[in-house]
């Protein structure tokens, strides 16, 4: 299994270029190429999660003998552990749904092979970022995914799309530069890039506190922007709604998590170390920014009538939940945060896809102009309601469990104020989505929408499937899913003081015979 880990990047990358190759001569092949690649990824990811393998794969392995007598293996270290496996599975699941949805939805766009190529590139970048074992490869894969997403936001080539893409690109590029600068500073002070080695060096106090503070600031700013943390959120409400619906689902559902949350977890917990000299201030910072994102996001979402914009603001709010959960610095908090990120990926992509369906059905994104869709489009409504209940935190769904866990984590970590804010935000989220349901799906059907038919099955099925996964995630949580998520969280954080997770990570990476 570990030998096959590079395939997670290789398959979508190959699909991307194969799509470009058939662009002119056989454009109809492109969707199937991407679909096959995504299904293959899904199989690999399921195999990975089921087998529960973890370890480091080294791409390259060109054994070098240095002239000082030591031999070492240069090469790209790909780390496959519980957390990576979780995110790989998530990427595969959501991409499959998105691709299926796009088969019919993208009919109205030109240059479809290009869309599939960019989408595959995006998947390759996200998978790579999740697997990368050293900081620089993390940066490279973040950039690959980002550049593909800039191009995808502009895919509609309308004025609005291009403006949003330009704004997104500008801010995203500054964030990337900030990440690279952080990597450069770390390299300057340690001469290392591998995350495990860096974590060991920092834990041993090789980096001065001032340097570490600068590095942490640079990473927080860069990755925070990618995760749409509140003071750096300005691009998201423009970029996500401007993209075609499947891409919005991809961006809001996956991109901000793999590039933002996942990278933040790895960098903060494994490299910089939440128990180290900066632990306390990082924790405070995460909590404050998280609260800001939670409250600000949901308040801005409440005022929106544009459905996709509303969903985009709500994404910011939900990212706030994840951030405060990570800010607790406990195993429970991390587990809850990761679980919420996974859940959010499922229900937010379902919601964005259904927003695409609704837009296709009604010709508008304004929820005040919709109404009574439930009567004419039952399948779409079913999926939308399921996903909405989940994001609102209604009991049997997965959103309920993750929000509950976050609250428990916050209260048990002695942060009742943050807990109260989170609870209030959860209530406001419920209000927001009740409003959406009320205005868009139920109520009186406007005269002009009397004759519409529900979207084709290839568009409603992915939404329903994702909503079903939300329900399943909630039902399975007490029955075993909690162990898998708990294991994933344990790859970066455990509560047992004797066996700290970052050290396990280091042991795992170093056990491959690799000398730093």
């Amino acid at each position, binding site marked *: 299994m570990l030998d096959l880990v590079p395939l997670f990047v290789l398959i979508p990358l190959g699909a991307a270029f194969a799509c470009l190759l058939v662009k002119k001569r056989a454009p109809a092949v492109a969707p199937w190429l991407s679909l096959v690649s995504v299904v293959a990824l899904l199989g690999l990811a399921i195999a990975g999660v089921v087998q529960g393998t973890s370890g480091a794969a080294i791409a390259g392995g060109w054994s070098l003998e240095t002239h*000082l007598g030591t031999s070492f293996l240069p090469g790209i270290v790909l780390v496959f552990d519980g957390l990576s496996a979780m995110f790989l599975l998530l990427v595969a699941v959501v991409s499959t749904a998105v691709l299926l949805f796009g088969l019919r939805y993208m009919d109205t766009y030109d240059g479809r092979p290009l869309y599939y190529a960019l989408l595959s590139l995006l998947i390759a970048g996200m998978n790579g970022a999740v697997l990368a074992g050293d900081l620089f490869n993390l940066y490279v894969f973040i950039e690959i995914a980002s550049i593909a997403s800039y191009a995808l936001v502009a895919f509609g080539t309308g*004025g609005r799309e291009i403006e949003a893409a330009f*704004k997104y690109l*500008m801010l995203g590029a500054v964030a990337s530069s900030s990440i690279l600068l952080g990597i*450069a500073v770390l390299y300057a002070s340690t001469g290392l890039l591998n995350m495990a080695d860096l974590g060991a060096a920092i834990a041993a106090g090789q980096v001065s506190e001032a340097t570490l503070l600068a590095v942490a600031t640079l990473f927080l700013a860069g990755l925070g922007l990618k995760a749409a943390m509140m003071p750096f959120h300005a691009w998201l409400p*423009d970029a996500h709604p401007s993209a075609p619906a499947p891409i919005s689902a991809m961006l809001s559902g996956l991109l901000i998590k793999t590039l933002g949350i996942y990278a933040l977890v790895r960098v903060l917990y494994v490299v910089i170390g939440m128990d180290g000299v900066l632990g306390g201030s990082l924790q405070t910072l995460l909590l404050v920014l998280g609260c800001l994102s939670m409250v600000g996001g949901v308040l801005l979402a409440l005022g929106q009538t544009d459905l996709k914009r509303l969903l985009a603001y709500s994404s910011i709010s939900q990212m706030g939940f994840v951030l405060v959960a990570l800010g607790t610095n406990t195993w429970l908090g991390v587990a809850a945060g990761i679980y919420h990120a996974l859940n959010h990926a499922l229900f937010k992509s379902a919601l964005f896809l259904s927003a695409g369906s609704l837009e296709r059905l009604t010709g508008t994104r304004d929820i005040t102009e919709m109404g009574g869709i439930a009567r004419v489009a039952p399948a779409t409504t079913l999926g939308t309601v399921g996903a909405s209940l989940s994001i609102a935190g209604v009991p049997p769904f997965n959103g309920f469990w993750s929000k509950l866990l976050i609250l428990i984590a916050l209260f048990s970590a002695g942060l009742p104020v943050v807990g109260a804010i989170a609870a209030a935000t959860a209530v406001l989220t419920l209000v927001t989505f009740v409003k959406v349901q009320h205005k868009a799906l139920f109520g009186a059907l406007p005269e002009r929408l009397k004759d519409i038919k529900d979207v084709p099955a290839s568009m409603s099925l992915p939404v329903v499937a994702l909503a079903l996964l939300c329900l399943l995630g909630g039902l399975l949580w007490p029955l075993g899913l909690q162990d898998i998520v708990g294991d994933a969280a344990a790859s970066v954080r455990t509560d047992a003081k004797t066996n700290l997770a970052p050290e396990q990570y280091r042991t795992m990476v170093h056990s491959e015979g690799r000398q730093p």
Partner: protein
Amino acid sequence: MIMYALAAVLFGVGLYGLLVKRHLLKKVLGLLILEHAVNLFLVEVGYIEGGTPPIRIEGADAAAFVSNAVDPVPQALVLTSIVIGLGLAMLMVALTLRIYERYGSLDANRMSELKG
């Protein structure tokens, strides 16, 4: 030290262009300068005063080579980052062209479809 200051100055110039200038091409140039400031910093990290290039000549003394050679890792990183910057620059220029096609202007204040 003065080289590090140069990187910092370039970074500042880039950031200034990006944030203050209203002309989109100037924003693009600002971003490129900013990226290259980071690249410059990375190269300087691996630089050794009076060092040799990290290429081993046939029959050269190994120990002296290891202690004198400039660190090649930052150079590899910079090369990769330049490639990424190139792709980014291409995309930026293409987007700028599209904006110009649509609005007949490159003034950021004339782009009005996205407010709030």
